[in-house]
């Protein structure tokens, strides 16, 4: 997974980003002001920077204007939901922005999207979960070296669970992410597909049912 530099002067927010990104396997480094960010870029050589706008010494905008980030993609974190700020950030060459407060799943999806765009080939080829080997880019899953037939929906569900591993996703959230927001159906559909996935790939130990919440891929 990717190396990510988190720059935010609020320790609480910085830690929150770190905890969430660590869950899905990213390696993170923290900086708390503009000068620390420049240091960390040189030392840590991140693949992505999450940059708060309002930080001491050098604010996020001037940091990007000065080109401190080089070729590294930048996602701005902004506490203000001012359109002007977002536009300014994007104009300066930011790849995306995230407004506080943010949702963990949204954060991970945006980070993934920016990483995928910036490093087209970097999608990790094989995920090994128990006895199963899953290749997301080829949309193939194997169990004991034998290819397993999965329906489109089953594969998309598996992909969402892998990408948000270690985070519990509610049935409704899974419906929204896999079936789409306009899908009118029972959350029981999710249960049926989860059962099939567990059986086909022998994932009973990894796809956990979390009481009152939903499902979580634990690796």
């Amino acid at each position, binding site marked *: 997974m990717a190396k990510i530099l988190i720059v935010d*002067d*609020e*320790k*609480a*927010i910085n*830690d*929150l980003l770190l*905890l*969430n990104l*660590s*869950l899905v396997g990213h390696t993170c480094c923290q900086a*708390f002001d503009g000068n620390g960010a420049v240091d960390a870029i040189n030392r840590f050589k991140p693949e992505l920077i999450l940059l708060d706008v309002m930080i*001491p010494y050098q604010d996020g905008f001037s940091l990007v204007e000065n080109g401190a980030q080089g070729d590294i993609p930048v996602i701005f974190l902004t*506490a*203000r939901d001012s359109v002007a700020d977002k536009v300014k950030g994007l104009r300066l060459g930011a790849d995306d922005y995230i407004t*506080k*407060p*943010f*949702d*963990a799943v949204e954060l991970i999806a945006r980070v993934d999207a920016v990483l995928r765009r910036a490093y087209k080939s970097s999608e990790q080829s094989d995920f090994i979960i128990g006895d199963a080997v899953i290749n997301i880019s080829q949309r193939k899953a194997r169990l004991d070296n034998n290819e397993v037939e999965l329906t489109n929906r089953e594969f998309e569900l598996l992909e969402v669970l892998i990408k948000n591993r*270690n*985070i*519990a*996703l509610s049935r409704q959230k899974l419906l929204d992410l896999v079936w789409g927001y306009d899908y009118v159906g029972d959350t029981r559909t999710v249960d049926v597909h989860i059962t099939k996935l567990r059986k086909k790939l022998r994932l009973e130990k990894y796809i956990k049912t*979390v009481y009152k*919440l939903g499902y*979580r891929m*634990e690796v």
Partner: protein
Amino acid sequence: MKLWKKIFLGTLIIFVAAFDVGAFLLTSFAYDYNRERETEIAVREQSVILSSFTSSLLRAEHFDPEISMNKARLSEIMSSLSNYYRKQGVQLALLVNFEHIYSDFADLDDLWLECEDLQSKNVIDKRVDDKRLLFVSSPVPDYPQLTFVYCRDISAIDEFRSEISRFFVILNVIVIVSACVLLFLLLKHITRPITVLNDMAAEIADGSYDKRVEIKSSDELGQLAKSFNHMAESVEKNMISLKKSAEDKQQFIDDLAHEMKTPMTSVIGYSEYLKNANGSKENQIIALEHLSDSMLRLKNLSEELMKLTLLREEITELKLIEVDKLLNALEVTMKPSLDTRNIKLLTEATLEYFVGDEALLLSLLTNLVENAARASKSGDCVTVRVYESESAIIEVEDKGIGMEQEEIEKITAPFYRIDKSRSREFGGVGLGMSIVSRIATLHNARLEIESEKGTGTVVRIIFTTLK
């Protein structure tokens, strides 16, 4: 209809009517007067001519007693008189028993029809052809059968009348036209301030509150303009202060929203994390710590806000405070927190008593000492002095990091913090100096800050009315 038009038409109608009535009365008075004078002259002249005729007659009678019957002789006398008076525009006639003996003018039989009594003097005003003639007839004294007729041309008074009428018509036109022009200009001049005021009122109503009228006359309109400007001024002043207070409130709300966003984000983020994530025990503890810190920050924020809200009301009761007691209370409150940071608190008081609200002044001192302590490093000391120099002064001094001039200017603004992370370490929310400034204002005191980067800060509360 506009005001000036109303006044214009009204004045014009009255003026023209008065002028014309006056002209008419003047003309007819002059005419009557002239006619009377002409009549008087005619009567007098007739008497004079008659008496000269009578004397001629008497003289002739001396030679010829029957003369009054001798038509040819009478005619001769008349003709000599007539020839003499004709040059003066007078014509004469003589009748005997209503029969013409001598006449300068044409047949005038019908004239007698108008005479009421031929035995007395008659005056007849008559138009013949295109002339106006005044006849005066009377019997010759001592000769009742003779009637002496005198005639005078008085066409001149008619001419005079028509002449003067023509003159008045021309004068009327000239006077009306010039009155129109002068009245128009005068009214325009008088009503101009009204138009100006009206336009300005419309402009001010549309939002140009800085507009003023410029009318420098001293009449009622000038006074109205003055009052109008006065009104516009207070409206503008109120608008500005309302705008300012609305802006300040908006700024406060914006800042408050911003201030709340970070702890809110943490609370939501960490509770989601604890609920959904399969994190390690260690990470869960980190999350819980941040969660409780954020809650604490929100609690502090709401408490400080509450204080600031309560301070909006005026102090009703000022009491005599013992300075020693106040400083003791300060030490008791601050000691534990200062000890942990290894910062000493020194107090010096040369003033024994003080008028104020004890609880509020303690809160003010606590805030100032806390700020001083945050600027200081371990081992430093914070000094609080209460003394008198012209007026009572409370002073808090530290030897800490100090501030820049621009930071001093912003220090009393709500939520302004020089070092965010350092302030938060001690649970600050950025309202301390706002509260200090508010308490100072409630005591009619003035805040004075002296500071230099690197050498320290002195904050003075200078009481202006209290001792």
